């Protein structure tokens, strides 16, 4: 696979939210980069690091997290192919959280300098990437609503709806079925619940015939009812209807 093919995942993902011109696509896909393969729980960057590059997820799931002094971990977000989970390190010199692989992953590391030059040459790309970080912030707001105000059942249902749509829009999930590599401990750390409670809630989702889990494949049995149970409104993902 050429470098270009790798970065086409990024352009495809950006195009789920924004229209890109051919010139912009060509320039994005010819950015210099280095491929790195990561094992589960391997860090891409750690809190306190001064990164000089940002990564594009090519394969697998990554997650952003913080660990408190007590050792408790909060997972802040999940990231799938085509996303740039540490794009903000272009302008924020010191990482205020860490980014690690949830599954075995391939990432493309794109140095900041050429990315900054690209944005300087094509102000519209600056707007596209800005828009992407704003959507990222929108997802954080939705998670905050979930952790603060949704029931555990709604929170889990909501996360499943969100991840399905994010994966489906880049062609990585279809027919209401998705690869679900998130363990109960990871899910608990992402939704602010104990693993025991996650197990209870997954059981309820299954008993309500909303989802089925076989191995690592999660199937949504009734999308309409799952969306209603979660109170899920995909507006915050700002997906383009055409994609």
């Amino acid at each position, binding site marked *: 696979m050429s470098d270009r093919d790798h970065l086409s995942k990024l352009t495809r993902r950006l195009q789920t939210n924004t229209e890109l011109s051919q010139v912009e696509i060509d320039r994005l896909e010819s950015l210099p980069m280095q491929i790195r393969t990561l094992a589960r729980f391997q860090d891409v960057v750690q809190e306190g690091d001064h990164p000089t590059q940002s990564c594009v997820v090519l394969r697998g799931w990554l997650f952003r997290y913080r660990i408190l002094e007590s050792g408790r971990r909060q997972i802040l977000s999940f990231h799938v192919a085509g996303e740039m989970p540490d794009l903000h390190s272009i302008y924020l010199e010191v990482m205020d959280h860490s980014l690690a692989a949830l599954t075995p992953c391939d990432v493309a590391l794109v140095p900041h300098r050429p990315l900054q030059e690209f944005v300087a040459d094509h102000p519209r790309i600056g707007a596209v990437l800005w828009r992407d970080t704003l959507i990222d912030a929108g997802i954080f707001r939705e998670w905050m609503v979930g952790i603060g105000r949704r029931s555990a059942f709604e929170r889990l249902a909501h996360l499943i709806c969100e991840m399905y749509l994010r994966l489906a829009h880049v062609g990585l999930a279809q027919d209401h079925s998705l690869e679900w590599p998130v363990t109960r401990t990871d899910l608990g750390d992402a939704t602010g619940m*104990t693993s*025991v409670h996650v*197990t209870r809630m997954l059981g309820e989702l299954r008993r309500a015939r909303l989802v089925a889990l076989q191995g690592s494949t999660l199937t949504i049995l009734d999308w309409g009812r799952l969306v209603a149970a979660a109170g899920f409104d995909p507006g915050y993902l700002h997906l383009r209807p055409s994609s």
Partner: protein
Amino acid sequence: MRDDEGLELPDRESARREAICSLLDIARDELPDGDHRSFVITVRDGGETSLLSARLALDATWLAQAG
């Protein structure tokens, strides 16, 4: 509800903590739902021996008539 998959925990204290924190999660989801509720969790080891029982109870009582 019975969890047949279980969890790997390093020691007894972690199991106690997980059980008590789970009671808090469950209560947060289920309450308010009536004035008298109690939630019980039992921790078993891999050999099905019960190690710990934890109970969290709610008792809400009116102290004055509605005015």
